[in-house]
């Protein structure tokens, strides 16, 4: 199809000005003139914007006129325009991999602004190196693989629910895996949602029901993903269904069993504020509406079996069940957990009864919560007449979480409003460093809460003391506007605790070979242009697992992830970059070092004709070259970055 290697290289060099980005520092004409002196270069020129249409046209024309078969563009980083120029050369009839880009902007003109002469010299070095490699470039052919038309969604919070429904509505099969007995995530714990104060359950439960009814969604609740193998288009997933000891196909959710169960333990769904039985449903609207036995506490008295009667749904002998599914793409939506406020002992959480977390408050104020929506303090069950809300507990703290948790300012304003609504004469204080009310309608909500008489004190709380008799709390801080220490005696304290990735994300992250950013949240492919993808093809992110965000942002990202995850499936096949590792089986000794260093699980050592040889899964390989560098016998090379190509560059650098 296209001109290829083998023939004598005829190289064209194109030096870009990038306006003044490059030309303002580097003498581009001199670089182009210099390029003409290099071996095999038959044509060289410069142009103001190589990436523009006329710039690309220039390249195509030169290829035709000068019969060029290798192209070097000296411009910006290949991360930006390598694909552009590959397409350009391909349009002119060359194999797109007979192109090499020299980065004379990010790695030169931008960093050596003060030293134009040296920068020009460095540009020449970089061009010489690129030309040396171009001489040895080989044509490569991309591969195509078919795509399994199904998606795995991990995590059934609002992010996973939204993504699943979007995909299912497009006609794509979805396997939704949730580790807890019900879907709903943290949002189903909330009472009202800022800034519009709609009831969280009222807007979420319809979606949960849709999930359970949708013909395209298979829900695996109380299940975990234990193994993932394969690559974009073809992932093999092993799901473990944990035993509920209640048969999903028989349980009607009538609840007779829980009525008779004699064992009562704190309900983790209510964060310890309310009780549940050993056989339980975490909350009334749970999906699926199936009971679960907590075997750590069950005494096997059998009363529930009797109560269930003819339905015979209870099965003490249920075993874990393994399910295997095949999917083309995966969305991770494993959400968050609160930072453990015990790590800030100065606030006395876990020691002082009346110091609670924000999520506990959501359960307290929730009509379906343990107090039926009455705000009462834990020590005596009385409505508090004064409450202090402490912002940034754990967040924006180099000693805990360096990042801003993004939601606490707004939910705390909401909490202040809710207290004022239910206990109008209560004094409510919010201790804050900054109020970050950045979203649509958020500043207005802030204003409204101030209007309701909530007192905002600008200062981060320093410590809390409990009066042992009254169980009241004395909160110390500085009112930084007055420049004076303040002591507030209040009957209850709410800690606006920051958020961390759900710890159950970690095994998933490892199984999928995706990475995390320094804050521990999952890393997106690009912070601005691709926030819903990972760096692994075919794996996408939705919701809090990627970083702190509120519900509107979570839903937006979930829909974006669903859209991105559906693209390969709708295309039906995917093209795989041919820049992958390549094993010379004659040299490979089967030592397996490559397997241990590969960050993507793309190399495995297998038996080939009785001998152990490394095998590369081209769809998984990202061409990072870790294996090539580690291989003691030089058996693995990465195509397009072969040893001789790289050494030629090094030689060119040293012999300039």
């Amino acid at each position: 199809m296209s001109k290829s290697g083998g023939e004598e290289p005829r190289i064209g060099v194109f030096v870009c000005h990038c306006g003044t980005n490059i030309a303002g520092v580097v003498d581009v004409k001199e670089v182009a003139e210099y390029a003409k002196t290099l071996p095999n270069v038959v044509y060289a020129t410069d142009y103001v914007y190589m990436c523009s249409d006329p710039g690309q046209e220039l390249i195509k024309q030169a290829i035709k006129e000068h019969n060029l078969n290798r192209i070097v563009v000296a411009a910006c980083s290949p991360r930006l325009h390598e694909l552009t120029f590959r397409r350009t050369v391909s349009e002119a009839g060359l194999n797109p991999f007979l192109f090499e880009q020299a980065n004379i902007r990010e790695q030169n003109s931008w960093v050596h602004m003060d030293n134009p002469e040296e920068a020009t010299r460095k540009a020449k070095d970089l061009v010489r190196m690129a030309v040396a490699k171009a001489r040895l470039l080989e044509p490569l052919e991309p591969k195509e693989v078919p795509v399994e038309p199904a998606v795995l969604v991990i995590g059934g919070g609002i992010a996973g629910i939204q993504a699943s429904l979007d995909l299912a509505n497009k006609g794509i099969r979805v396997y939704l895996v949730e580790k807890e007995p019900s879907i709903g995530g943290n949002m189903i714990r909330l009472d009202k949602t800022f800034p519009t104060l709609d009831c969280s359950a009222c807007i979420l439960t319809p979606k949960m029901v849709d999930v359970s009814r949708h013909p395209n969604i298979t829900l695996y609740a109380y299940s975990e993903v234990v193994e993932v193998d394969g690559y974009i288009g073809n992932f093999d997933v092993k799901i473990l269904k944990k035993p509920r000891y209640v048969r999903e196909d028989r349980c009607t959710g009538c609840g007779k069993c829980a009525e008779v169960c004699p064992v009562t333990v704190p309900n983790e769904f209510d964060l310890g504020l309310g009780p549940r039985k050993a056989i339980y449903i975490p909350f009334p609207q749970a999906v699926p509406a199936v009971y679960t036995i907590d075997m750590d506490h069950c005494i096997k008295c059998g009363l529930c079996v009797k109560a269930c009667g003819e339905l015979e749904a209870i099965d003490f002998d249920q075993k874990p069940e393994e399910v295997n599914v095949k999917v083309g793409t995966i969305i991770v939506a494993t959400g968050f957990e609160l930072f453990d406020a015990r790590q800030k002992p100065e606030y006395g959480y876990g020691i002082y009864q009346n110091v609670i977390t924000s999520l506990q408050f959501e359960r307290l104020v929730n009509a379906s919560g343990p107090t039926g929506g009455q705000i009462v303090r834990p020590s005596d069950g009385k409505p508090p007449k004064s409450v202090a809300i402490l912002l940034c507990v754990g967040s924006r703290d180099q000693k805990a979480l360096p990042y801003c948790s993004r939601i606490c300012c707004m939910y705390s304003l909401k909490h202040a409003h809710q207290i004022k609504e239910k206990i109008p004469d209560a004094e409510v204080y919010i201790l804050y460093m900054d109020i970050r009310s950045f979203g649509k309608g958020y500043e207005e909500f802030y204003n409204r809460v101030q209007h309701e008489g909530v007192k905002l004190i600008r200062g981060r709380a320093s410590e809390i003391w409990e009066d042992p008799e009254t169980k009241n709390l004395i909160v110390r801080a500085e009112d930084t506007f007055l420049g004076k220490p303040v002591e507030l005696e209040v009957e209850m304290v709410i800690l606006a605790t920051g958020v961390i990735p759900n710890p159950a994300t970690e095994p998933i992250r490892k199984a999928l070979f995706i990475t995390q950013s320094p804050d521990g949240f999952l890393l997106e492919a690009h912070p601005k242009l691709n926030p819903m993808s990972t760096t692994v093809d075919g794996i996408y992110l939705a919701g809090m697992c990627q970083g702190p965000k509120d519900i509107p942002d979570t839903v937006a990202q979930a829909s974006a992830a669903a859209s991105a995850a559906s693209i390969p499936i709708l295309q039906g096949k995917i093209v795989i970059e041919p820049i992958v590792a390549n094993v010379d089986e004659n040299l490979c000794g089967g030592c397996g070092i490559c397997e241990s260093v590969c960050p993507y699980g793309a190399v495995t050592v297998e038996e080939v004709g009785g001998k152990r040889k490394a095998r590369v899964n081209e769809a998984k390989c990202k061409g990072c070259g870790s294996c090539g560098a580690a291989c003691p016998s030089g058996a693995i090379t990465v195509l397009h970055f072969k040893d001789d190509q790289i050494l030629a560059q090094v030689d060119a650098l040293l012999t300039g």
Partner: protein
Amino acid sequence: MSELEQMEEKPTQRAVFEVIRSSEFDPEFAKVVASSGADEIVQCFQCGTCTGSCPMGRVSAIRTRQIIRMAVLGLKKVLATDELWHCTTCGTCYDRCPRDLKVTEAIVVMRMLAVREGHIPPNLARIVGYVYQYGHAVPINEEIRNLRKKLGLSELPPTTHSYPQALESVQKAMKATSIYETVVERGKPDRG
């Protein structure tokens, strides 16, 4: 005393309001404070955790956050304030600062810079003088000598009190550093 406190104390008297002008900012000062051991105080985001934690701040006019603020802006007049010497170096602010700043060390460093500028509290000069003269900030007295004897301890402890040569080395060491000129000399009783 802060303006507000002045107002509170003498409600009839109007506080003097002053404008802080950028010409008072000494960029070198902030750098000197940082490089003398206070490190990254420019990262202070004025949360007030330090002031709220400060046990002294509840009984004196010391406002830890404001001391740091003045240093960050380069307001050198912080060195002349009385409050700078109210810190007990308890380290509570240091332990709680969410920006992980060495708050207490910043204060100690500023005290040292104050000393270099000639703001030497008499007690500091006295204590340094004692260390120079006896090797002890708290030298022994007659009463304690007797008690030591009574308890069966050596009359003088086995410190510089018992070893004149050791005391001499302490004095030589102090003479070899700038402390002798800045503090010991000035702190001698005849100089007041």
